[in-house]
């Protein structure tokens, strides 16, 4: 999953990004002013935007209005020092999905991020199930056909994304967009590499049950439901 943090306090953004990458295997982009942040949010497909309200150039409330005005459906978590009920109500009414005040518990922030992303993919349960595949998004433990394992970061990231969009055809472009932040080099065949790595671990057999290639379109994770 790919997350955008718009926060002008650089070190705070860095801290949150580190934790999201480390704990959740998210790809994270950070922006330190409102103008840049708004532009990023509108031009890239993020799964979550973490938004500070007091930003230079364009403030958080305006960004919220713009995002929702342009029809962006990405969940937005507002992270701010302003805790007055008026501010909370205003932000929620302008379209944010959750609100957390500084200072905050890092673990709580992370849990809320996960919850918002789950909900945006219409997967309310933290345990993703697709056929015999079971992914506990909180612990990142993957279970398949009775075996449990921990996957390396990028593979987990890919598997989780495909599982969230189970039974959909996911294009390579989508995968690249959602798995990498700006700073990463992207090689277009890296997806194949990770897919085959996943297959090796989970779905080795001659017939691929779980991960399927859809020629010319992308990949899909089949849950086995008719």
């Amino acid at each position, binding site marked *: 999953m790919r997350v955008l943090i718009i926060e002008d*306090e650089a070190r705070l953004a860095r801290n*949150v990004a580190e*934790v999201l990458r480390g*704990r959740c295997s998210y790809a994270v982009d950070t922006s330190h002013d409102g103008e840049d942040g708004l532009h990023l949010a509108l031009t890239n497909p993020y799964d979550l935007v973490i938004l500070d309200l007091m930003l230079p150039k364009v403030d958080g409330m305006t960004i919220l209005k713009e995002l929702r005005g342009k029809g962006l459906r990405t969940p937005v978590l507002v992270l701010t020092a302003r805790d007055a009920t008026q501010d909370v109500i205003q932000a929620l009414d302008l379209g944010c999905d959750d609100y957390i005040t500084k*200072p*905050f518990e*890092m673990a709580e922030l992370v849990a809320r991020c996960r919850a918002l992303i789950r909900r945006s993919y219409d997967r309310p349960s933290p345990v993703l199930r697709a056929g015999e595949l079971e992914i506990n998004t909180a612990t990142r433990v993957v279970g398949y056909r009775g075996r449990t394992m921990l996957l390396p970061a990028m593979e987990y990231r890919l598997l989780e994304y495909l599982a969230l969009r189970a039974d959909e055809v996911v294009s390579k472009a989508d995968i690249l967009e959602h798995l990498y932040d700006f700073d990463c080099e992207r090689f277009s065949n890296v997806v194949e590499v990770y897919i085959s790595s996943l297959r090796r671990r989970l779905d080795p057999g001659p017939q691929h049950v779980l991960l399927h290639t859809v020629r010319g379109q992308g990949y899909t994770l089949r849950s086995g439901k008719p």
Partner: protein
Amino acid sequence: MMPESLRWRISLLVAGMLAIVIAVISAVAYFDQEESMRRDTDRSLRVVAGSILSEVDEPWHTGRLHEQMRSILGVRRGQWRVACRVWLDGNAAELLLSHEADSSMARWLRQVPDQYRPANDASTYFYADPGGGERYRFLWFRNVTKRGVVNVVAGLTCSQAQHEMGEFLRMLVVLGGCTTVISAVFVTLIIFWASRPLKLVALRLSGITPANLAAEDLSDVDVPTELRPFLAALRDMMLRLDKVFQQQRRFTADAAHELRTPLALAKSTLQAARLKQGAGRIDSQTMEEVVGDIDRMERLVNQLLDLSRLDEKHEPPLDEPVAVNELLERLAAQYEPMAVASHGRVTLEPMPRLQVRGNEPQLSQLFSNLLENALKHGPQGREVTIGLAGEDGMCVARVHDEGGAIAPEDLPRLFDRFYRADRSRTRATGGTGLGLAIAREIADRHGGRIDVTSNSREGTTFAVRLPLLRSA
């Protein structure tokens, strides 16, 4: 002695004045009446004297004169109503005597004191008590006739008049007293009734709390026009107080808010490190960052305390001479490293020796804050210039940086607490937004002020004006 209540004072004064006025009028009436009664008596005596004289002129026999006068003058209870004696000068025997020869009246009539003797053809009036305790009004009339100089002394008792005057006085006292008392009561009632609005206002005021200070509108209280300016002034004061309260509240909220950011930084840094490195090991970079956050909080707290001390004016200002040029030189040297670290420098223009009167640590802080602001606000790698001059009896210190234009509408707000013209830059460099506010407070306390000019050509200049002590 006067009661403290205004209403009672007014009531007493009005009652007192009423009493005095009534007393004066009564006195005038009384004496007038007395005068009038006396004139009546005197007129009666003149008539008596006149009738006696006309009888005396007639050549009556003495006995006949006696009878005649007796019938003219009248008798009451065996006594003549008018006491009189008529005699001729030089002749001890009298022509007429109203009373028994051995009575005290007769004795007195025969020895009327000479002081009352009038001139010829003249008369005197006088009061006397001819024995017996009763007061009489006498007339002594001397008339030159063909028989000689006739003396007529006639007297009427005053007891009737006195009795009547006594009645009159009683009536006046009773009437006056009642009038005074009733009027006083009415006046008191009216005054107490008229002062009801004050009570109403007092009642309304007692319901005012810091919460409804601005909301409480006293304009609906029904007060007489004289009290309206008072109410208006009261309302103004309440609004001013409310504004001050709001400023305090906002300041406290802002301060708490400002502290949250460094707190969030420190906390998130430690928590991220713990998640990444495990609880056992926190690397030194993390420690440095957190210590920096704590420093930032400490700076903010100190500045807040400074501001609150300046607000409360608890600290007595040290009233000592301060050499401004030396102060600026010291500060320039102190901040040189910081300037060098961002590839800039601090330049001191040549300065005259100028002194102001004030508190050296505070002035040092004032200029420190300006210098820090200039170094942070100005672009990297440029210079900050400090100048000093004496102008029109004021010591003017200028801190100049080449940082670009602050918008004209932002200029007056620069000195507001927590205000930052360019949010991101000052945040990054750890500014609290209080430095300029504190600088202004200090300048105010020293009887001076700070002005700022800024444009993209010349950069930004802060000019501090302080009253000059003397140039040494």
